């Protein structure tokens, strides 16, 4: 079914290409874009979207690439799936270079992205799958059973004859996943697969994604939902501004901030000057500001064992202050600290 | 904003907003190259049919092609707003409607005039037509009035575009009608009677006839009647279009049908 998996490093399998310990490898990947601005006097700007990203994913791992919008997640994934050629650096999937052996790699990867697009609206889900099955080289005899299997897996059985234009976001997403798995690829790349999906639908999608590694597949997932990465991923790389700022298991990342505490101060309009003063306090690790309707929430991460509430408030002299509380840090704080520091 | 400003500035900005993507890669092929080939196409059909002179087809098609900006652009200006879903926001403003829409029409008329003039000049050169120097000024006038009058039709089409779902089909059908029923290519006496009557009510019919007479040596005064009729027809379409939009706007406020793309 699908494509030969003779690459696998399993006992008894001999493959004359290198037996990769790592299914996906990114080695100092860089990607620069040239854009032009202005209509009359065109100036070209160079934007470095990815600046030296390196990571590797072992077989059967669910690896998360976590970062805010514009961090370079999508660009990174596009390089890995052979859509973009890196400006420098190397990327390997199953031991093969994604630029030199693009076709070989394409036969063995699945690509799923979030959002409304990427499907033929005027066709039924079944027709969409049939078309892509042909494009991905699924044997004619296997196409029908495979499509049925996948419809069952993603919970679209019974609705496959309806046109995609009538599908909800969640249904489209599920169809995307089905499409990405048609040729039973050993490696699956998911680019923000739950974006814009309602909570219930998203939960089901995550369950499906988790089941992929259960089935032995290797998965790279990009997301900006921190809790999603925490819940699903074996390992996470946090990416911001085109660079990886932290890598590790969710536990390891949390441990980075597990000691220490967080002081939250409600403020009504705070200036950068005051923030700088707070940042400058001894024992303060990071300061972030979140907007909440009419007010803002100042989130201050502090070293363990220190009581800094008083010191912080004194630096906010002249600023209207509301509630003050302190709590344990969460993975989200770690994430915010990493991402805002970059 | 005073009416005059709404007229001028609103018109220009909206035109650029909707056609800001109009790069030379679109403008030149669609509005400059295509009309020359349409002229050539019908010049050769004309030679094969051996009915009229080359000049007949150059003038007919040169002017007829102004319908691309005048009808398509005008329709898009309203229907395009609906597509971009900005129509609702615009109609909510207190700006008086007449200068608003008429202001949008001005760049369209200029565009139509320019396209027709280009077609006539370049088409004429390519095919080898000679027009007396005295004919230039009257031709400019006739062409301008024709562009104006067709834009009137464009305004009506824009109104219809609010009802019809596929506005591009509507615009193309109007283009086709203007191709067949204005004497642009088929001499009016070759049309069946009922079509000839339709032709009398279309923009371009009188303008094209006037242009042909002028090219053959008639003076502006000689064709004043035709030009007047052309302008009148355009005005009637413009008024009809304006009223239609007005009525539809009222209707949509009651029934919420405006944004249905």
């Amino acid at each position, binding site marked *: 079914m699908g494509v030969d998996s003779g690459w696998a490093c399993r006992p008894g399998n001999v493959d004359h290409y290198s037996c990769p310990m790592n299914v996906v490898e990114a080695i100092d990947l860089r990607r620069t874009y040239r854009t032009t601005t202005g209509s009359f006097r065109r100036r070209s700007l160079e934007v470095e979207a990815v600046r030296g990203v390196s990571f590797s994913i072992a077989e059967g791992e669910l690896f998360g690439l976590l970062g805010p919008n514009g961090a370079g997640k999508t660009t990174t994934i596009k390089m890995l799936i052979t*859509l973009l050629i890196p400006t420098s650096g190397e990327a390997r999937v199953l031991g093969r270079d994604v630029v030199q052996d693009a076709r070989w790699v394409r036969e063995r990867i699945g690509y799923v992205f979030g959002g409304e697009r990427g499907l033929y609206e005027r066709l039924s889900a079944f027709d969409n799958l049939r078309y892509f099955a042909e494009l991905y080289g699924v044997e004619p005899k296997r196409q029908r059973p495979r499509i049925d299997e996948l419809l069952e897996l993603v919970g679209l059985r019974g609705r496959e004859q309806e046109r995609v234009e009538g599908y909800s976001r969640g249904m489209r997403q599920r169809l995307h996943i089905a499409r990405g798995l048609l040729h039973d690829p050993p490696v699956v790349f998911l680019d923000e697969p739950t974006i814009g999906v309602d909570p219930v639908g998203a939960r089901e999608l995550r369950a499906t994604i988790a089941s992929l590694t259960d089935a032995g597949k290797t998965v790279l997932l990009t997301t900006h939902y921190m809790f999603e990465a925490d819940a699903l991923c074996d390992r996470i790389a946090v990416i911001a501004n085109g660079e990886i700022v932290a890598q590790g298991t969710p536990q390891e990342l949390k441990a980075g901030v597990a000691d220490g505490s967080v002081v939250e101060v409600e403020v009504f309009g705070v200036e950068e000057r005051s923030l700088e003063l707070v940042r400058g306090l001894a024992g303060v690790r990071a300061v972030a500001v979140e907007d909440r309707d009419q007010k803002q929430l100042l989130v201050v991460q502090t070293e363990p064992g220190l009581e800094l509430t008083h010191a912080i408030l004194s630096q906010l002299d002249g600023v209207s202050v509301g509630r003050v509380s302190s709590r344990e840090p969460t993975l989200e704080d770690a994430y915010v600290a990493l991402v805002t520091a970059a | 904003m005073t009416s005059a400003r709404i007229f001028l500035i609103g018109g220009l900005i909206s035109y650029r907003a909707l056609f800001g993507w109009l790069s030379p890669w679109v403008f030149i092929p669609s509005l400059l190259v295509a009309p020359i080939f349409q002229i050539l*196409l019908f010049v050769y*059909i004309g030679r094969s049919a051996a009915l009229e002179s080359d000049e007949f087809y150059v003038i007919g098609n040169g002017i007829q092609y102004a319908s691309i900006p005048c009808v398509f652009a005008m329709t898009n200006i309203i229907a395009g707003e609906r597509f971009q879903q900005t129509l609702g926001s615009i109609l909510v403003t207190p700006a008086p409607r007449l200068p608003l829409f008429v202001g949008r029409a001005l760049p369209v008329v200029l565009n139509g005039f320019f396209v027709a003039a280009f077609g006539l000049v370049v088409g004429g050169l390519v095919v080898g037509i000679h027009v007396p120097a005295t004919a230039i000024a009257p031709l400019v006038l006739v062409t301008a009035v024709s562009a104006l009058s067709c834009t009137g039709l464009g305004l009506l089409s824009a109104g219809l575009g609010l009802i019809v779902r596929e506005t591009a089909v509507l615009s193309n059908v109007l283009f086709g009608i203007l191709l067949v029923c204005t004497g642009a290519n088929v001499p009016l006496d070759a049309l069946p009677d009922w079509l000839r009557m339709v032709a009398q009510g279309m923009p371009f019919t009188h303008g094209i006839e006037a242009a042909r007479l002028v090219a053959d040596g008639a003076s502006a005064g000689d064709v004043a009647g035709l030009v007047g009729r052309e302008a009148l027809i355009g005005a009637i379409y413009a008024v009809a279009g304006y009223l239609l939009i007005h009525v539809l706007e009222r209707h949509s406020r009651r029934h919420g049908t405006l944004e249905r793309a």
Partner: protein
Amino acid sequence: MMRRTARLLWVGWLVHLKMLMRSAFNFWLGVVYPLFFASAAFLMFRSGDDPKPLLYASLGAAVMGIWGATSTSAGAALARERWLGTLELLVTAPAHFALILLPVTIAMATIGVYSMVATLIWGRLVFGIELHVADSLAFALAVPATVASIGALGFLLAVAFVRFRQAWALGNMLEYPVWLVSGFLVPLALFPDWVRPISWALAPTWGIGAIRGAALGGAPFGDIALALLLGGVYTAAGILLLERALRAARVKASLALS
């Protein structure tokens, strides 16, 4: 391998044809628009003295729609996929991209057959133009050959315009010139000599020649062969251009969804 290729082309063609047929816009525009031009031409020829040009034009007018349907959509074929968000999926599929794109443009040309039928019926009902097909077999071969070769020309256009976002405008621009120079409505003899090689290089010229020959009694098989040969040439040229264009797109990231 051959079977896989054939299947890919067949499935791709069916799928895209299905989608095109479900688009009211494409459908009506593709059928109605050429009818106006045909009508103008018929009215012009009818009032002339000679009946031959009218008959000559009626078959050509019928085929105008096949070219119209292709030229106006093919250039933007990739832009359409980009807009749908499917372009990335097509490019990252293991199948050769040419085999994915070619059926798309052939499907576009196939829609033109509706226009052909409509124009022939229109010509018969409104203008009384009788059409008797002298050689049915040749006619049955000439039409698909014309569709396929025009589809291949569309493929070349689609590839040539892959770098241009405004490709639809460039494709539109080619509608008239081919109608003119392929001799759809007027015999090639009317054109200056230097136009002749341009006409010969265009598959539609041979396609319409074959269809006319089959209907009016000529020797169409040579024309059919030439149309198909040219179709092959366009496809080969398109494939070569495609390799370069795709590589450039991957380097410059111009395949990004706009």
